[in-house]
């Protein structure tokens, strides 16, 4: 592999180097191809495998063929240490990924995102002493990799904590100013470090300080963001990790890393935009967290919430032709997806056409409801997106809202003063009957009354979604 096969600009290059670059090209192509297949249901699984193959190829050829860049031709040493580290990480990753419950998926995605960010942060930290201080570009990408990686790491850890219920929200207006200050200090320090003529060793204190500042910023950035905004935050942090990896790609002049990282950055950004659009809010609005403030026009009293008995609900649903189930975070919390599927199968045997209406931001991460229901073996053909189900609503006999609130609040359409005005909703109020399963009389995340619950057509079943569904299934069976 050390055979010199030609020269480029006077520098000789070997067969090994050429094969390495070729393998990076192939890996990058596999990433693109994999992502392309991942965006269609039929081919998604193959796409994931192709992308994984690309990653394996890149790792393998780096291990076998990478040489020191200065042309001294020193091959990689410490191969056993590297293999052991990969072994440890892979084993943990594999076991956790196999064992984890599907309901814990948002946490897991955040956790893995955190580890990716941490790796980027560490690589940038360790490469800083090797940076050419007179080449501002090279210093810039190293510092950016460090900052973005650190924010992705600590931010994802906080997101993980929040999704797991271990970390609460800070809802103080002060956080906004603290964050702006932190950001100014962080970038100020980074700018100072970029002045040419400095020696990296003298800046050791600065690089560690920069890392700590970025970590603190990541924490403070996610802290004030509420649960219902989690889909946006997770997507955003995901794109950060990608960008951080791309920055590291600059350090190593590694095109596979640059391309892979930027692809992930783009994917994360697209999801972020989609999630924001589904809530009709700007990204800035989500980050600053100006939601649920007192400026909302107070919902007028709309009479009383009317309850329904289990047997009436069972009869109503059994003798319907079209039933649409609207799942929300309450379904995930109660882990009611299996019994929910039991209900839809039972109704199907009675000739009822049951479908699920999925709002893009239902749950705590993009596509959360789809994953939950897929786990319970609900065929994905039965899961209908909001835009496709809304025209069918007037022909729907019963809409069953399970643990969802703001995504079916008609105020988004009717009340221009509402904080959720303009947010696309599932138009449950157009259906003939609405049954709402709710834990209590509380408000949704947006902190506003939902006039759907007071509607003439609406009846409520209070209680934990799983228990309620279980009783309903028993009731329908005994009909």
């Amino acid at each position, binding site marked *: 592999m050390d055979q010199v096969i030609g020269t480029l600009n006077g520098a000789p290059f070997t067969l090994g180097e050429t094969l390495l670059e070729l393998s990076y090209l192939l890996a990058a192509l596999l990433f*693109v191809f994999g*992502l392309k297949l991942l*965006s269609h249901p039929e081919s998604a*699984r193959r796409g*994931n*495998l192709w*992308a*994984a193959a690309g*990653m394996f190829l*890149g*790792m393998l050829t*780096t291990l076998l063929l990478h040489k020191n860049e200065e042309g001294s031709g020193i091959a*990689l*040493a410490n191969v056993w*240490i*590297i293999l052991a580290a*990969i072994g440890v*990480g*892979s084993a943990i*990753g*594999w076991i956790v*990924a*196999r064992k984890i419950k599907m309901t814990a998926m948002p946490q*897991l*995605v955040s956790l*893995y*995102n955190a*580890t*990716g960010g*941490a*790796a980027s942060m560490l*690589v940038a*930290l360790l490469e800083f002493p090797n940076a050419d201080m007179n080449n501002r*570009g090279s210093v810039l990408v190293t510092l950016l990799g460090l900052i973005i990686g650190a924010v992705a790491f600590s931010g994802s850890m906080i997101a993980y904590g929040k999704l797991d219920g271990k970390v609460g929200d800070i809802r103080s207006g002060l956080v906004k100013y603290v964050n702006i200050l932190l950001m100014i200090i962080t970038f100020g320090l980074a700018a100072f470090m970029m002045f040419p003529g400095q020696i990296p060793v003298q800046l050791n204190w600065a690089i560690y300080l920069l890392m700590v500042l970025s970590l603190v910023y990541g924490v403070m950035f996610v802290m004030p963001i509420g649960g219902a905004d989690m889909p946006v935050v997770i997507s955003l942090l995901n794109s950060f*990790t*990608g960008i*951080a990896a791309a920055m*590291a790609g600059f*350090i*190593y002049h590694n*095109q*596979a*890393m640059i391309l*892979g*990282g*930027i*692809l992930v*950055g*783009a*994917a994360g950004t*697209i999801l972020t935009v*989609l999630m924001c659009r589904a809530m009709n809010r700007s990204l800035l609005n989500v980050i600053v967290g100006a939601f649920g403030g007192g400026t909302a026009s107070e919902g007028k009293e709309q009479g009383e919430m009317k309850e329904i008995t289990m047997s009436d609900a069972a009869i109503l649903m059994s003798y319907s032709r079209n039933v649409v189930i609207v799942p929300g975070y309450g379904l995930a919390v109660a882990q009611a997806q299996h019994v929910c599927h039991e209900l839809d199968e039972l109704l199907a045997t009675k000739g009822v056409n049951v479908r699920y209406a999925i709002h893009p931001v239902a749950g705590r*991460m*993009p*596509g959360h409801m*789809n994953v939950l229901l*897929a786990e319970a073996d609900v*065929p994905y053909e039965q*899961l209908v*997106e909001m835009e496709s189900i809304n025209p069918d609503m007037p022909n729907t006999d019963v809409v069953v809202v399970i643990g969802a609130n703001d995504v079916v609040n008609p105020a988004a359409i009717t009340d221009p003063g509402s904080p959720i005005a303009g947010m696309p909703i599932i138009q449950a109020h157009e259906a003939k009957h609405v049954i709402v399963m709710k834990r209590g009389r509380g408000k949704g995340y947006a902190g506003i009354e939902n006039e759907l619950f007071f509607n003439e057509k609406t009846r409520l079943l209070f209680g934990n979604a799983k228990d309620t569904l279980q009783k309903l299934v028993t009731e329908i069976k005994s009909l």
Partner: protein
Amino acid sequence: MEPILQFFFTYKEAIFIIALSVFLGIEVISNVPSVLHTPLMSGANAISGVIIIGGIILVGHADASQLSAELILGILAIIFASLNVVGGFVVTDRMLEMFKKKKK
């Protein structure tokens, strides 16, 4: 102005790659159905573990004759990145397997 131009010239290939892959990423992933949002995110997340190549190069050229902070942090970076890569791809596969099996 000069530093910016210098930056561009030094990294002209990489900047081309970035500019094009942003477009490529948007083209490849736009119009993804919401069914696939979670697997797409976790699959993309696994790809961002490509940083592992950086970790391998770093530790590969580190001095392992003594236990230095650099070596330990480098090893940590590889462990984290491989967790991200393997865990990400495996969990994505598990999710997609669930989507697949109910095709009657």
